[in-house]
């Protein structure tokens, strides 16, 4: 039992720091610092992935034979922490952190050979097709049809809340191949080429004004059966495996720590206000404790295990803490929090119906311009990847046996 870092760990930290100092350009730093949600500006995110890939660090959590890093648990954690501290733009999680794990665990050798290297080089950029308009929390009720016709599955239906669909050339989707059994049966995990005929994308304008999320319509889209991951009709097994990756096993605490430190650095006179100081102390304490919790779960993951229901716990704790921090940032931001000025930020997608001022004027400072957009977008944390109500149901049932 030890929370301190060894000499080798410190040397690794310095190696990461040197790399970040050298490679993180002012534009990339700005794109990281002024993110309005968990999604960075797409171009910046892709540019950063290219730099990481060049160093072999784009997908450190993958097995070494597919391009991952032979790091200790502590090194993984140090790497995430240093990236967060330096303010790197986030990488899209859909390819590297999600579908890749499904391909690694359930894919055929051909699928691994085709997709994994291309995900790393950005030749393949994935989006996710899970939720449907009538299937959100009750994901297993999904109904997008995939009907067998020779060597193809013909897909018709709609997916919603797909992030960066317009930027993606592939989507991993859950489709309905059989309707006769329990709803969890008859689901298939399918990779669909977004350039296939019959796909239409409708952007959704969020309260932040951003168009990062979309609804996708599939009209008789033909997909080769060879694009199925795992077994036809048993996609739920793959999806459950992935959802646990989506929900936890990562390291949210370092980024949250950076957010609290920035508030502390920018709040000025507010720090002398006992009410504000108490709230800031509270979120910092929660962040420190979350860091240890994540550390424990990460141990399981890096030792080859699945985080299981611990991912539900981390998902609830980290998203609700993040929301509390964005509330506090709003309080710290002062009058400029009221001003809608996305041009002073680096959102994760286009902004609808907005004309920036001709002279580029910003009321207050850029971090103050970020505060309301981040606050609005962060409401998604308790909704996506299984709402926090669903996570609590999972914990009640699977952990407490209720």
């Amino acid at each position: 039992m030890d929370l301190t870092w060894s000499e080798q760990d410190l040397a690794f930290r310095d190696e990461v720091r040197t790399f970040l100092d050298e490679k993180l350009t002012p534009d990339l730093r700005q794109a990281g610092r002024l993110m309005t949600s968990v999604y960075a500006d797409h171009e910046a995110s892709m540019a950063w992935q290219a730099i990481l890939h060049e160093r072999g660090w784009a997908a450190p959590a993958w097995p070494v034979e597919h391009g991952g890093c032979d790091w200790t648990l502590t090194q993984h954690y140090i790497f995430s922490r240093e990236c967060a501290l330096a303010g790197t733009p986030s990488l899209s999680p859909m390819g590297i952190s999600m579908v890749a794990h499904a391909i690694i665990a359930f894919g055929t050798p051909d699928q691994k050979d085709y997709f994994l290297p291309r995900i790393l080089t950005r030749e393949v950029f994935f989006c996710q097709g899970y939720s449907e308009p009538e299937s959100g929390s009750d994901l297993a009720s999904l109904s997008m049809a995939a009907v067998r016709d020779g060597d193809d599955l013909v897909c018709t239906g709609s997916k919603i809340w797909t992030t960066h669909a317009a930027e993606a050339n592939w989507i991993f989707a859950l489709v309905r191949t059989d309707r006769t059994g329990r709803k969890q049966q008859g689901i298939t995990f399918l990779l669909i080429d977004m350039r296939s005929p019959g796909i239409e994308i409708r952007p959704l304008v969020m309260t932040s004004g951003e168009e990062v999320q979309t609804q996708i319509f599939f009209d008789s889209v033909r997909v080769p059966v060879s694009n199925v991951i795992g077994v036809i009709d048993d996609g739920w097994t793959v999806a459950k495996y992935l959802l646990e990756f989506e929900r936890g096993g990562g390291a949210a605490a370092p980024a949250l720590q950076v957010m609290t430190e920035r508030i502390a650095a920018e709040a000025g006179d507010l720090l002398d206000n006992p009410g504000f100081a108490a709230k800031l102390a509270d979120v910092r304490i929660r962040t420190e404790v979350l860091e240890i919790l994540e550390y424990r779960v990460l141990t399981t993951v890096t030792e080859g295990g699945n985080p299981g229901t611990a991912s539900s716990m981390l998902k609830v704790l980290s998203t609700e803490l993040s929301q509390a921090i964005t509330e506090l940032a709003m309080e710290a931001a002062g009058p400029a929090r009221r001003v809608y000025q996305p041009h002073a930020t680096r959102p994760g997608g286009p902004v609808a119906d907005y004309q920036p001022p001709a002279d580029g004027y910003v009321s207050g400072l850029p971090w103050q311009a970020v505060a309301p957009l981040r606050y609005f977008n962060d409401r998604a944390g308790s909704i996506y990847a299984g709402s926090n109500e669903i996570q609590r149901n999972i914990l009640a049932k699977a952990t407490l046996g209720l």
Partner: protein
Amino acid sequence: MDFRLTEEQELLRDGLGKFLAARYGLASSRAAAKTRPGWQPAIWRAFAEELGILAAPLPESAGGIGGGPVEVMVIAEELGRALVIEPYIDVVVVAGGLLRRSPSARAAAVLADLGEGDAIVALAAGEPADGDRWNVLSTNVVRDGGDWVITGTKTVVMAAPLATHLLITARTAGTPGETTGIALFLTEFDAAAPPAGVEVHTYRTIDDRQAADLVFTELRLPAEALIAEDAWPSLELARDQGAAAVCAEAVGAIRTVLADTVAYCKQRQQFGQPIGGFQVLQHRMVDMYLELEQAVAAAYLATLKLDAEPAVRARAVSAAKVTVGTAARFVGQNAVQLHGGMGMTEELAVGHYFKRLTALQYEFGSTDAHRARYAHLTRG
């Protein structure tokens, strides 16, 4: 003890409610917010000519109906229910109140125009580093011959882009934080063609309203621009009147949001049943309802003590703003949560209401600022 509205007040409420239901569409008003001029002048005109509400709080001598805090509460609640972005509270309640309490004949004339919809007056009081207090004021004014010369920066001046007049607070003496030496000036204004010495940066707010930052560099005003010499007591009252009206507006918005959320949860099916059937969501909606009822009571508390002596008034308004701010946050956040992803879009009303319920937590003093003021006033 009587919480009933008079017959006239009921007529006022029903008339405005019907007007807004018939003429104020959420989609069209948001579309107007996002294009020039950023609001609907025709609606404002109708407020003046068809409904007479721009003159409602004005004395009969100024063409009004002599309405008091209860009339303002009734109007603000209806405006909140329909999510009206036109700046009624900023212009009619706050700026109008300041004009009404000024002994100046010019102020009286502009007030009469305001009541008829011909003048729109914006209050330039807030500053970038004022810590949410209008007395922490560094804009200063000096006498130069017969003129006043103003220098300083005002931020988030609500309604400035549509204003025909500005009310400007400036310090004749003292240091930021002192309540003496604060004067109030009235001047004509056009954001599109500002006078010499005024730099204007207009923008939309997060809740789809129009506002601006104003930089005064030796803005020269004539002697008669001064409409209140020792303006703090009137400014403090204006802020409390604004806060009380925002409480009522919030009540209207919260009512809509709760009704929408309950309706959505009855209709939205997951796991083979309406999600409103799940006890955890039922309890959440009951908690939202309990917040609403406390907000309603708090709005009454502020409204009914608005004419009391300053310390009593301030305590009631702060208690109300804290209660309503807390309710606005809880109800807004949970309404989004229970609507799921759809609650985060601009496609349903709830997202728009959420933005307003966020912004109003900071208007005329944030929840924390009012909590601190309440603590100070009740220390004994």
